[in-house]
């Protein structure tokens, strides 16, 4: 080029790198928007982990207050008073509990106040952050006067996104990056554009629209609130959680305790940080897909994503992906072409859910115990600790069921559509159990368990602890198998309907059963911890086993059994609401004949007839036996008769389970169990009224015990028999 020539050479525009054209999808993509996203549950897990940790931190910080010295003196005084006024250990304990109750309740209020403060400041930061961001980044309103063409396009895109109210568009004219960002708070959203992006409007309008639609997808799905709540919570957790803990670590009585606090705080900070990132990552791919769907068929999303820098990491270096707040561009591109990766759940998802629940569990139980110190509960002879454990596990089971249940449900959809067998829930069950088992140790309360230092006791404790975790995993595995079998049935029918399925009944059923199982196993673990704090070694399995025995006869088991039977039968017996093509399940039109025909319905009549026949046979046996024996005056004979009648009912239930599961076409095990349980209810009723007819008492409590024993023992026999029958015979 010659300098000073009259006709300057035409300048070549400086442009961004060009990118590859999108690839056409090979098979119809599944529609992830038809199913609940896991972002909500991940956020709830984050909140649970922060609440659990916050409760412990403020419990610990309480000891740093001058008030705590007076409390210790109060404990000593209470102990002296209790010992002075009673000799029976139980009475001493009751007096001590009542005496220290005001102190413990004050501590509970302090802990709640601390967590309340964390949550309150989180909300405050979430509310204030948009304005702060606006000022700090000097974002100004993008006006129609200045850029009428850009503004008109933005308005059109808002209409495309069908937003109830359009966000306000701001921009930073000087920022050269071509980036958009949705932020704000509920009811007041902003989409910030950069100068580089507005310039992109004039150079590459489809790319500009892709970026803006991606941000509008965040607004539409409510992601903006989740994102900024997660970010605010992380910041406030450091400020009001970890900093006070760090300041008071010096109060630890010894180096061991201080070290325990420090590593737990670090582990927890890492976990909360990773959970926050998981929340932020999980929403991005959905926004890409939504934007691409809105823009179809001229979407530039693939082009935009291809232009993003992407570093392929292999092996152990992949851990660095966990630190990212966006998924890798390659993964996003693959999800755009095939959404099936969004329909998978793995060990680590389940592990994260278990860990968050495990961290929160002991702190919440401690809070409830402190708040109710000195108050005796009278719910089916459970102690306050048991009620606290069950209430907490029920709450946390909702979260675990949310993450795991929704994940498995979605993976079942993909399996059905692709005509392959469902994924095994073994890894998921293992993840939940390991997470829960580890959570108690990573959580701060783990450092404060007063375990014995005797080597044998520690060994026995460790073995039993691992055994309990293995039992928990086995139970969760069975529950998830049951859930997936029922979900497969319902989804097969729903994939022949024009309307999307309701997911919450499935989620509720899983939550109930999971809550009861987790409640029992965590209760056993707590009792094992109590035993290991100074009781003889032989009591370890006894105490842990007591939790299972107690639960076996509680009404909760009847509830679990009812749920286990009712849920699959209801979904299998349901009718199609709107028969038609399942367009709701796909982003691309599905080909006809893609799906298997819906399974045969449940033969409820056969199930009822079988139970009735069994009950009539039982009636004959019981009446004949009673007539043969005559009036029962001897207690031993009465017990033998009771055991005999229950045994007869259990045997008949076993027979019913085998017959019905052999004949059944679908949900064979459940149908067998349902016939056995229905027969069990009828037979318990018969046994009760026959007993009354032959001169026995019409005792309500006795009737309930008879029903519980018949149902639980009957189910314990019927379930393996139905399973064996289903395995060994063809439907």
């Amino acid at each position: 080029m010659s300098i000073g020539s009259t006709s300057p050479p035409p300048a070549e525009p400086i442009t961004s790198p060009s990118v590859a054209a999108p690839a056409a999808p090979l098979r119809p993509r599944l529609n992830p928007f038809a199913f609940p996203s896991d972002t909500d549950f991940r956020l709830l897990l984050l909140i649970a982990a922060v609440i659990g940790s916050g409760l412990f931190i403020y419990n610990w910080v309480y000891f740093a207050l001058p008030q705590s010295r007076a409390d210790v003196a109060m404990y000593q005084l209470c102990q002296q008073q209790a010992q002075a006024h009673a000799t029976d250990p139980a009475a001493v304990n009751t007096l001590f509990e009542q005496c220290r109750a005001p102190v413990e309740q004050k501590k509970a209020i302090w802990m709640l106040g601390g967590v309340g403060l964390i949550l309150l400041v989180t909300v405050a930061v979430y509310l204030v952050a948009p304005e702060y961001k606006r000022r700090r980044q000097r974002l100004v309103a993008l006006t129609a006067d200045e850029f009428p063409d850009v503004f008109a396009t933005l308005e059109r895109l808002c209409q495309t996104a069908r937003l109830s109210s359009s966000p306000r568009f701001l921009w930073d004219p000087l920022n050269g990056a071509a980036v958009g960002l949705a932020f704000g708070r509920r009811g007041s959203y902003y989409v910030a554009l950069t100068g580089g992006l507005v310039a992109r409007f004039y150079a590459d309008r489809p790319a500009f629209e892709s970026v803006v639609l991606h941000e509008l997808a965040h607004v539409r799905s409510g992601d903006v609130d989740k994102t900024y709540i997660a970010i605010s919570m992380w910041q406030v957790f450091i400020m009001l959680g970890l900093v006070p803990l760090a300041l008071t670590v010096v109060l630890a009585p010894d180096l061991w305790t201080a070290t325990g606090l420090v590593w737990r705080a670090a582990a927890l900070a890492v976990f909360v940080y990773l959970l926050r990132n998981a929340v932020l990552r999980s929403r991005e791919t959905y926004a890409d897909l939504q934007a691409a769907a809105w823009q179809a068929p001229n979407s530039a999303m693939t082009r935009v994503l291809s232009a993003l820098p992407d570093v392929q990491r292999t092996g152990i270096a992949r851990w660095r992906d966990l630190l990212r707040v966006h998924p890798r561009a390659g993964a996003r591109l693959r999800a755009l072409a095939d959404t099936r990766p969004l329909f998978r759940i793995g060990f680590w998802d389940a592990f994260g859910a278990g860990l968050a629940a495990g961290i929160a569990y002991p702190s919440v139980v401690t809070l409830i115990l402190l708040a109710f110190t000195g108050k005796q509960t009278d719910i089916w002879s459970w102690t306050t600790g048991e009620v606290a454990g069950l209430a907490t596990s029920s709450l946390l089971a909702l979260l675990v069921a949310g993450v795991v249940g929704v994940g498995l449900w979605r993976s079942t959809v993909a399996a059905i559509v692709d005509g392959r067998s469902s994924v095994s829930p073994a890894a998921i069950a293992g993840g939940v159990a390991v997470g829960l088992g580890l959570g108690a140790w990573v959580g701060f309360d783990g450092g404060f368990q007063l375990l014995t230092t005797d080597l044998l006791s520690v060994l026995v404790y460790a073995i039993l602890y691992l055994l309990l975790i293995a039992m928990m995993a086995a139970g969760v595995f069975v529950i998830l198998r049951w859930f997936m079998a029922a979900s497969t049935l319902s989804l097969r029918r729903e994939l022949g309907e024009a309307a999307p399925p309701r997911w919450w009944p499935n989620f509720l059923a899983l939550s109930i059963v999971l809550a009861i199982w987790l409640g029992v196993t965590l209760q056993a673990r707590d009792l094992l911890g109590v035993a290991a704090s100074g009781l003889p070694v032989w009591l370890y399995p006894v105490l842990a086993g007591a939790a299972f025995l107690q639960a076996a006869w509680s009404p909760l088991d009847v509830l679990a059994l009812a749920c286990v039977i009712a849920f699959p039968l209801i979904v299998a017996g349901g009718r199609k609401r709107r028969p038609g093509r399942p367009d709701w399940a796909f982003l691309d039109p599905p080909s006809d004949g893609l799906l298997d025909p819906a399974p045969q319905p449940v033969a409820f009549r056969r199930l009822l007839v079988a139970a009735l026949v069994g009950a009539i046979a039982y009636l004959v046996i019981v009446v004949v036996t009673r007539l043969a024996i005559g009036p029962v005056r001897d207690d031993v004979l009465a017990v033998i008769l009771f055991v005999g009648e229950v045994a007869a009912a259990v045997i008949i239930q076993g027979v019913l389970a085998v017959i019905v599961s052999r004949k059944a076409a679908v949900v064979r095990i459940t149908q067998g169990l349902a016939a056995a349980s229905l027969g069990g209810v009828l037979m318990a009723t018969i046994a009760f009224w026959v007993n009354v007819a032959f001169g026995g008492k019409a005792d309500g409590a006795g009737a309930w015990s008879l029903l519980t024993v018949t149902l639980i023992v009957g189910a314990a026999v019927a379930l393996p028999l139905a399973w064996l029958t289903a395995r060994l015979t063809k439907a």
Partner: protein
Amino acid sequence: MAEQLDPDVADLSRDVVAALAPAELPLFNTVSREYAKDPERALKAAAGREEILGFGVEVGLLLTPVVISIAETVIKFVGSEILKLGQQAAGTAVDTTVRGVLAHAAASRSSGAHSQAVSLSAAQLAEVRKVAVSRAVSLQLPHDQAERLADAMVARLATAA
């Protein structure tokens, strides 16, 4: 801080932006106004401030602030050169302002006519190019882009031989 750019700088940089990054032309007035308020911030942000949660084509550069900054340097240099020319042409009725040079260049480009204004020699234009490249490189612009930008700027200043 000034609220508005020097008109010579604005004219020169607008023309260069039109040639090199036409998509940025609609933004020129806003960006130049912001630049005038805080040039340092404008140059820093032009390279694309990282927005962790944002989405888009993250590799980006807003050329306008860079062009304005180079234009400022160039205009300053040209001003000093014109001063020398003015001293040499003492007593002759010629326009010895930068604006005159720019107008002269624009007029000669459009009509081929010669106006009564001083024009830069080839050697001076080469010097201008060197100054522009040097400034562009100091602003972290890749060398090839710096050269293209300098060429565009020199072309704008060039007068009929």
